[in-house]
């Protein structure tokens, strides 16, 4: 459960996000939609703990900024809008999803390896495991990062425009994966521009406009506000 109460995010002394009070329900998919520059990515970054904020933003009963970063990464995973094609294989990337769960020397045990293999299989990129991130397409890169997020095994999953660069087939795979995560009790929040396809997946919708929340409720009602 994510609870927002008078959240403000500033950039160079200017408020770029000012939200009221609402709660994202547990075990549901919430879509955050709005035009470019409406504050969707900023909002996700604040929940992920990447950006500082004023007001209150709670995960369960805990204020996000009060949770140490390594423990936060065990509860919240975050897929940024822009992902980097680093010099490493897809499998190595997905293995990094286990980082928050391991202490020094961070060697993966058989359970971790199984989780990594499951995550790779779940997004259908088995054939890419040994490929370097620099040699795969933008869509494949996004799926690889999604597999890393899945390997992180958090209860809350934040995805910033995960459909970007994905073709129709892979978008459908993404929506199916998110639906199955919801069925497992995970709370998913993702921003989307592709409303025609993503709207049926949402349980709740938050509409942002110029850094303010203009609607939070059911998808059917949200359609009338667009």
């Amino acid at each position: 459960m994510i609870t927002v109460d008078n959240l403000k995010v500033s950039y160079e002394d200017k408020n770029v996000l000012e939200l009221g009070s609402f709660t994202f329900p547990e075990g549901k998919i919430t879509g955050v939609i709005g035009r470019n520059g409406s504050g969707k990515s900023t909002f996700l970054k604040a929940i992920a703990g990447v950006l500082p904020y004023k007001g209150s933003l709670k995960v369960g009963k805990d204020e996000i900024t009060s949770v140490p970063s390594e423990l936060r990464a065990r509860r919240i995973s975050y897929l940024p809008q822009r992902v980097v094609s680093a010099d490493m294989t897809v499998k190595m990337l997905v293995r990094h999803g286990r980082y928050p769960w391991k202490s020094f020397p961070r060697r993966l045990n058989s359970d971790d390896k199984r989780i990594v293999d499951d995550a790779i299989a779940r997004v259908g990129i088995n054939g890419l495991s040994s490929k370097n991130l620099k040699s795969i397409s933008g869509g494949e890169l996004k799926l690889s990062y999604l597999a890393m997020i899945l390997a992180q095994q958090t209860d809350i999953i934040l995805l910033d425009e995960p459909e970007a660069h994905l073709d129709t087939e892979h978008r459908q795979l993404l929506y199916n994966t998110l639906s199955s995560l919801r069925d497992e009790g995970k709370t998913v929040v993702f921003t989307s521009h592709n409303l025609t396809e993503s709207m049926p997946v949402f349980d709740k919708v938050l509409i942002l406009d110029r850094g303010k929340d203009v609607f939070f409720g059911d998808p059917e009602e949200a359609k009338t506000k667009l």
Partner: protein
Amino acid sequence: MKADGRRTVVIVGILSLIAAFLISLFIGNGTVGTGDLLQVLFGSSYSKSAYIILTRIRIPRTLAALLCGAALSSSGLVLQTVLDNPLASPGIIGINSGAGLFVLIAGIIFPFSAAARQLFSFAGAVVAVASVYLICKIAGFSKMTLVLTGVAISSLFTAGTNTITTFYPNAITDKAAFNLGGLSSVSLQGVLTALPCIVICLVIIFAKQGQIELLLLGDETASGLGVNPEHTRKVSLLISALLAGSAVSLCGLLGFVGLIVPNVIRRIRCEGLLYRLILCVIYGSLFLIICDVLSRLIFYPYEIPVGLILSALGAPFFIWILISRRKAVR
């Protein structure tokens, strides 16, 4: 690379390192032969001159090559990872020249103190890396900005070094060896002073390698995985500077080790920063010991500073990286 292959690369490296270490002990000019030196190691009676040559010259310089090779290679690998730039190395981004300038200042103020050289070297390395980091932050980080800032900072410190050696020619014992990087005037005291710092820095780098590697995924992803990117970057740069500073205080301005070794290791398709660090320690030491042995053999019985060999190898290597990067972009 599969697990067996990875293990083989490590074992071959360690065996080669042991062999190179022993060869380095027995090669060099002087009136004492290999038999005399073997007597010191394994015999019951030996000549005093053989004992002195082995314990005061050969062992310190070989240990120094081992330590500096490991320190500079690891420092280079961490810099390349943290700054996401294969051209980054202690020499290229000005750390060596910063440490060098401060070592000369220590030579004027505290002419007989190895500890002062070490401390001043640290200070110079940190000042250099902090300057480059701050300038890049203001100018906007890019691979080219980093290299150009390094060149500018390096030139500034080199100008300071030249000024000091002009007015205080006795600030350093062997000016040529210091400027080019050399192991001929290394003392056991110097080695023992640098040893703890290099070992501690390597332990810290090994402990933090997981966090450092996540920086490759970008700051936002690293944050999402529980890492504080800014803090990790600063600590990594500081430790890299201390490693390079220790090497400079011991062997002078050794260039290109931190560029060549990590880049070769990155190209042999070995994955994971931990494994690459292990290889950098082993092969960095091996590389510098081999270059040092060559510096004693090429114009035998005359010896040249090892930095000359490193420059002869490093400059074409740098050009090769530039060309291969351009081809990769195409």
